[in-house]
C-alpha cells in the first residue's frame, strides 16, 4: 500500500498545518485552563469547510477523502487535543451515521447544515450502566401516534452543550435484546430534551462533555435513523469509523509531544551540553519516533481502507489501540524529558499527557479494541 499523499492531499496538508499553527495552537493552553469550548475556532473551521471535509458535494460538503478528514484531526490534535475531538465527534459520530444510514429526506435536511458547520453534531450511546457493555441500554423510545417518545439519560457526551443535532440510541423493544435498539436523530431544543451536568475532566478540558436527559421527549416519527431495531448495528459501525478519528487524535497528540521534546532537548543544557547530545535521549527518542510512525501507518491504512469501501473494523481497532498507547507513552516520556518544567503549565507537554489518556478510554477502551482484534482471529463458528 502506498502512503504518499497525492497533490490534493499535499495542498490540504499545507492548509491544515497553517490553520492549526495560526488559529488553534495559541488557544490550546487557555481553553484547557478555563475549561472553555472554543466556539471561535469552530466558527473558523466552518468557514474553511473543515466541518464537512468528506461529505459529498451534493450534501453541501467539500467532497474530500476520508484520509483528508483524518489528516485534519491529526493536525488539529498536534497542537490541541480538544479541537481534534470536536471535529472527530462531529464528523465520525454524527455526520457519518446520517450519511450512511439516513434516508434522502434526512440527508437533505441535516447534512448541508452539519457540513457547513452551521450545526454541530454529537452522538449519544453511553449510559451510566451501559459503557463497554453498550447493549445494556436503559434509555427507551415508545411509538405514540406520529411520534417517538424518549426517556432516559446518556452520559459523557462529547460536544453536548454546543451540538444542534444528536444521533441517539434507545431501546424500542427490550425483548429483542441488541436487536431491540433503534437510532434516532434528535435536535437540540426539542421539548423534553435537556443537557445535564458538564463533566470536569482530566484532559481535553475545552471539549464540552455532558449528560443528555430525555423526559417524555417527543420527536417526529421520521427521525428514526435506519430501520427499527438497527440501532445497535448502526452504533457499532459508527464506532468502527469513530475509532479511526480517535486514533488520529492520539497520533496528533503524540506528534505534538515529539515536536515539543525535540525542540526542548536541543535547548536544555545540563552537564555542559544539550540533553539531546546524550545517547539516552537519542535512543529513547529514536524508539518513540519509530512508534509514532508505525501508529501513523496503521491510522492511515485504516482510513484508506474505509475510503475504498474495504472492511476496516479490525484495522480501526488496531490503529486506535496502538496510537492511543503510543500517545500515552510519548507524552509521559515527553514530561520526563522536560523534567520539573514539564510538570508545570509553562510547557504544553503536561496538557498533552492529560489529553492522551482519554484516547485509551473513549470510543472503545483499549480492552474493547483487543476484543475486536481477537474476534477477527477466532471467528465464531
Amino acid at each position, binding site marked *: 500500500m502506498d502512503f504518499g499523499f497525492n497533490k*490534493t492531499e499535499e495542498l490540504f496538508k499545507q*492548509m491544515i498545518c497553517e490553520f492549526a499553527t495560526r488559529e488553534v495552537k495559541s488557544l490550546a493552553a487557555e481553553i484547557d485552563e478555563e475549561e472553555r469550548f472554543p466556539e471561535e475556532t469552530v466558527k473558523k473551521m466552518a468557514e474553511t*469547510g473543515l466541518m464537512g471535509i468528506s461529505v459529498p458535494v451534493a450534501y453541501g460538503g*467539500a467532497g474530500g477523502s476520508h484520509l483528508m478528514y483524518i489528516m485534519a484531526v491529526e493536525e488539529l490534535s498536534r497542537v490541541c487535543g480538544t479541537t481534534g475531538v470536536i471535529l472527530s465527534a462531529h464528523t465520525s459520530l454524527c455526520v457519518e451515521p446520517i450519511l450512511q444510514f439516513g434516508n434522502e429526506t434526512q440527508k437533505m435536511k441535516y447534512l448541508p447544515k452539519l457540513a457547513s458547520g452551521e450545526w454541530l453534531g454529537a452522538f449519544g450511546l453511553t449510559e451510566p450502566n451501559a459503557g463497554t457493555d453498550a447493549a445494556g441500554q436503559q434509555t427507551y423510545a415508545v411509538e405514540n401516534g406520529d411520534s417517538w417518545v424518549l426517556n432516559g439519560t446518556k452520559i459523557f457526551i462529547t460536544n453536548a452543550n454546543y451540538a444542534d443535532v444528536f444521533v441517539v440510541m434507545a431501546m424500542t423493544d427490550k425483548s429483542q435484546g441488541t436487536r431491540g435498539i433503534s437510532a434516532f436523530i434528535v435536535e437540540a431544543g426539542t421539548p423534553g430534551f435537556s443537557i445535564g451536568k458538564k463533566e470536569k475532566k482530566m484532559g481535553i478540558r475545552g471539549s464540552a462533555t455532558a449528560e443528555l436527559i430525555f423526559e417524555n421527549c417527543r420527536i417526529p416519527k421520521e427521525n428514526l435513523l435506519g430501520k427499527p431495531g438497527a440501532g445497535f448495528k448502526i452504533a457499532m459501525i459508527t464506532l468502527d469509523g469513530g475509532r479511526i478519528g480517535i486514533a488520529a487524535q492520539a497520533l496528533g497528540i503524540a506528534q505534538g509531544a515529539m515536536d515539543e521534546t525535540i525542540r526542548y532537548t536541543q535547548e536544555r543544557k545540563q552537564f555542559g551540553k544539550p540533553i539531546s547530545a546524550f545517547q539516552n535521549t537519542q535512543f529513547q527518542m529514536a524508539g518513540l519516533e519509530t512508534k509514532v510512525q508505525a501508529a501513523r501507518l496503521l491510522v492511515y491504512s485504516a482510513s484508506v481502507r474505509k475510503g475504498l469501501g474495504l472492511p476496516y473494523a479490525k484495522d480501526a481497532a488496531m490503529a486506535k489501540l496502538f496510537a492511543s498507547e503510543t500517545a500515552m507513552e510519548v507524552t509521559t516520556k515527553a514530561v520526563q524529558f522536560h523534567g520539573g518544567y514539564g510538570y508545570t503549565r509553562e510547557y504544553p507537554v503536561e496538557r498533552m499527557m492529560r489529553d492522551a489518556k482519554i484516547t485509551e478510554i473513549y470510543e472503545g477502551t483499549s480492552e474493547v479494541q483487543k476484543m475486536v482484534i481477537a474476534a477477527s482471529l477466532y471467528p465464531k463458528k
Partner: protein
Amino acid sequence: MKIIVCIKQVPDTTEIKIDPVTGTLIREGVPSIMNPDDKGGLELALRLKDEFGAHVTVITMGPPQAEAILREAYAMGADRAILLTDRKFAGADTLATSHALSGALRTLEYDLIIAGRQAIDGDTAQVGPQTAEHLDLPQVSYVEEVHYREGDRFLRVRKQTEEGYQILEVALPCMLTVLASASKARYMRVRGIVEAYGREMEIWTADKIDVDESKLGLKGSPTWVNKAFTRGVKPAGTVHEVTPEEAVDLIVGKLKEKFII
C-alpha cells in the same frame, strides 16, 4: 469587474540560508510559497469578488513547478489561472519580468491589476510599477486598503507612506501594488482544494504573448548581480537614560570620536 492578480512563487525566506562561500541561496529543503504580499493582493481581489462578484484571474511567471501557487489560488477562490513558462523567460531581472507580464496582460481584459508590493526573495518592489508603466496605467503602490462603490469607475485607496498614509482616488483601469499586512489572507477552502487539481491550468509560452522577444529573459535583463553576501550580525546597542540635552552631547561626542563630524 475583471481583476488580474500577479503572483510569484518564492522560497520561504524565513527558512533560507546563504552559502557563505558562493554567496548564493541554499534552496535545498526550503519550501516554496506564494509570496506574502501577492497573497495579500489576491485576498483583496477575492474580497471584491465576494462583495461585487468580480472575476479573478491569477497569473505567474516561473518554472513549471510554480503551478503549485496557482492551484493554491484556485483553492482560495480564483476563477482562472495562467502560468507563463518558457526557457525564453529564464534569467529575467525585474525589467524583463515586467515586459513578459505586460506582454501577457495586453492580451487579457481587465479593470484592475493587483500585484504584491515586493517579493520576499528579491525585495525590489519594481515589477508592479514597471508593468504599469509598460501598460500606460495609473498606479498606486504600497496600498493598504481598497474601497469601491458599485458602478464607480474609480477606486479609493489608502497608501502607506513613511510618515503615515494617503487616501487617493485612482481611475480604473489601474495597477495597485499591495502590502500583505493590508488584509489577512483567507485559508484555502477545503472544497477548493478538492477541486483545484481538476481545474484548467493555462500554460502560456513566449510566442503566446504580445511582447518583443529581445526584451525577455537574460538578454532583456540589464541588471547583473555582482556579489551576494550575508551581512554580519550587528552588536547589541547600548541604552542611555539621559535628558535630551545630555543625549545631544552624547551623540555629538560619539560621532566626533568616530571622526564622522
